[in-house]
């Protein structure tokens, strides 16, 4: 167990990073540690957590904006927003239940550092699209800021957004400012049962082309759907294809009707009411249909219409169970454990069909041996290394978490 440091102020963090930079000591950066089992294992003597940098420092409901210290738990942020009828619209997913981390503990800084968004991403954009500004400390122990608290801001380069998805390898975020949105008055979910993957994705894409603002479009293969908590859907023994409509009540009713009419060739959709909808989409947010087991979990991003072919291509080499999100564009794929994590076959399928694959769950030894994140093209790899050197020349922040020597 490495030495755990809990800076309670930015200057304290800055001081710690400066000390490590001078001695070239690698630091593992964590929030609540709920995603610690994702990525390549880090060999470091020191862990710094942002958990003591917490609290909401600004919230203006009428401007749809909030600022929170990076270590503030997402649960706290969402409770505060809910009290004002607002939400994190990109619906950050919690991968902890799938990788054996502490459930419901993730911090708001980590959400932006990893850019892991949930089902509503398809309508409103990803975590990165909601980020307005950051403060942080880079590997040179410089305190810096980028962006701000206003929605429209093109002053200087978009460094804040550029740090999303960098998994703590470029800077330690100390504060994030983000856009929030009102909770829709109500939600309904239309469910189609027993569709094969290709028809299901066709349905999801057709739904997304309707002017009804579908805010969730998922397909769960039968074995995955069987893990749902929703008693009705779970017991059907069939694949579940679901669409979410959110708005004020009259609009949801009208839009659901229109959507069902447009999709009637796929069958007669069942409808989940508001309460059932919340439960269903809540389960997906916690990835409870992909529980922590001795199998591997991959996250594959691709073009929706090619997703079923990509999964079929992988299935020629190994058993695989899929949960398609984002109208098919995001595949959570469970495959049996293997020393090489099926990397060669999965990445080959992704290369042929377009897209990229990240290994989310595997034993540390496997994650140390294979490329966990999608290997980069040579020019992008060069830019990546140069950016790392610009932010963290000594290579002390989460070294190797994403790529070897980055």
């Amino acid at each position, binding site marked *: 167990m490495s030495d755990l440091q809990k800076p309670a102020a930015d200057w304290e963090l800055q001081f710690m990073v400066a000390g490590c930079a001078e001695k070239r000591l690698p630091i593992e950066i964590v929030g609540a540690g709920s995603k610690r089992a994702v990525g390549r294992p880090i060999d470091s003597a020191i862990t710094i957590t942002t958990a003591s940098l917490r609290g909401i420092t600004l919230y203006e409901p009428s401007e749809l904006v909030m600022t929170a210290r990076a270590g503030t738990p997402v649960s706290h942020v969402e409770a505060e927003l809910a009290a004002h009828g607002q939400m994190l619209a990109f619906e950050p997913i919690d991968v902890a239940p799938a990788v054996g981390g502490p459930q419901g503990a993730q911090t708001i800084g980590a959400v932006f550092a990893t850019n892991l968004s949930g089902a509503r991403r398809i309508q409103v954009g990803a975590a990165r699209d909601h980020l307005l500004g950051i403060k942080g400390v880079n590997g040179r122990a410089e305190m810096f800021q980028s962006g701000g608290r206003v929605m*429209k801001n093109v002053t200087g380069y978009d460094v804040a*957004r550029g740090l999303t998805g960098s998994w703590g390898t470029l800077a330690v975020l100390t504060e994030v400012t983000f856009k929030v949105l009102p909770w829709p008055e109500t939600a309904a979910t239309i469910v189609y049962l027993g569709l094969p993957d290709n028809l299901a994705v066709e349905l999801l894409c057709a739904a997304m082309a309707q002017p009804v603002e579908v805010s969730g479009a998922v397909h769960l293969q039968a074995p995955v759907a069987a893990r749902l908590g929703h008693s009705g859907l779970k017991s059907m023994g069939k694949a579940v294809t679901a669409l979410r409509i959110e708005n004020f009540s009259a609009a949801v009713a009208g839009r659901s009707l229109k959507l069902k009419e447009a999709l009637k060739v796929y069958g007669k959709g069942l409808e989940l009411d508001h309460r059932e909808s919340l439960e269903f989409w809540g389960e997906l947010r916690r990835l409870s249909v992909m529980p922590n087991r001795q199998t591997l979990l991959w996250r594959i991003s691709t073009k929706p*219409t090619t997703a079923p072919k990509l999964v079929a291509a992988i299935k020629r080499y190994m058993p695989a169970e899929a949960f398609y999100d984002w109208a098919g564009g995001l595949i959570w794929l469970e495959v049996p454990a293997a020393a090489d994590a099926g990397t060669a076959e999965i990445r080959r399928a992704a290369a042929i069909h377009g897209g990229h694959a990240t290994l989310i769950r595997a034993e540390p030894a496997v994650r140390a041996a294979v490329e966990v994140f999608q290997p*980069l093209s040579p020019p992008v790899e060069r830019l990546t290394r140069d950016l790392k050197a610009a932010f963290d020349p000594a290579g002390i922040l989460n070294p190797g978490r994403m790529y070897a020597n980055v």
Partner: protein
Amino acid sequence: MSLSRLPEPDRDVLARSAAIIKDLEQLIGADAVISEEEGRRTFETDALTVYRRVPLAVVLPRSTEEVAKVLKYCHEQRIKVVPRGAGTSLSGGALPAEDAVVVAISRMNRVLDVDLANRIISVETGITNLGVTQAVEAEGFFYAPDPSSQLACTIGGNLAMNSGGAHCLKYGVTTNNVLGLRIVLMDGEIVEIGGPHLDAEGYDLLALIVGSEGQFGIVTEATLRILPKAESARPILLGFESSEAAGRCVAAIIASGIVPVAIEFMDKPAIAVAEAYAKAGYPLDVEALLIVEVEGAPEEVSRLLGDIVEIAKPFRPKVVEMSSSPEQSAKIWKGRKAAFGAIGRISDYYCMDGTIPLSRLPEVLTRISEICASHSLKVANVFHAGDGNLHPLILYDANKPDEAQSAALAGAEILKLCVEVGGCLTGEHGVGIEKRDLMGVQFSDADLAVQMRIRSVFDPLWLLNVGKVFPLDAIEGQATQTTRAA
């Protein structure tokens, strides 16, 4: 007007200009190179016309490969390059330099692929912003960012400046609507980033490149997100007795949970000019006017507009005019869309672009009036209220050097005020040459150093769009530091 200092042209490059032009002609053909003075002069400025510089040459490549050839050559020869779309930048982002080659992407304007099932379109970046929507509107789709120059401006320029528009309150700006791009780096290397899928792998290079003001490379192709068009949209016009009441009404609408597609604000001077020009039927006896547009099915729109009328009541609007037909909607929008042009007919103006937190609006409007009055200048305000993006238009007479100078000083004071209340220097026009020297108001030396190092990753020799975005002294400071470190 007090102008930003431009970098001194490189005499060595100027001396070689004939040879450089010959080389460029050999590389991509004489018909793709503009070398005679008259032709070059066409490119001497953009929409910030107070700055003019005739470039060394202008090239009009027809393909990514030709762009790569030109950049590789300029890199080897240490010649500066200024990328250009349609030249509609309001911040001088496309201003050439005497020792630079302008690379204009206007010939590369093809639609490469329309993929309705996946809701994406791939284009060459010389296509106009409106051209993208036109390619998909027959199928019921549109491209969301809509800067007011959308008839002319290119996607390449939109990417460089991260352009917004009136409808970004709901749909976001350029960076939120790009999935992938093909960029030529200064050394001629062609790099593909992202693609037709969501959330590109690795670091978010798209985020860094979009809004980098042409300093990271030349983007030649882009994959953009398209959206199904709403069934209908209608605006409502609300007139108030004070700007404060209008501002509070905007906050109340947003706090209510309604997210309109647009909330536009005009103050009395702007209303008067727009009305005189466009005959939009605007009331002339109000201090502030809001145009709020919502969309959805017709019955949804009616309900939302009804809700907005109720929300507005406590702020005592003097005028409430709900559009009941497409003709009426067009009329309501006509005045707003014509406002800048209408003001331009009665006076020269300097258009500012700061953003502020909405809660500070009344105070900021008062102080903008005071600032302009202290310089004996008039100001008209037309802006995107939903996201706090102000466009104060400072009116002046360009033939009076004193007034032009005062307008520039007042403009700088207004932008400093925007930062002081928690906002920023520019919401959608970009820093360019215009706001370069104000960057220190918003950013610390460390903040700027972080940005300049990123620039060096993409363009280590600093040959692309030189002299913009960063104050020259900050650049010199950074260069000294780098030299010392090396």
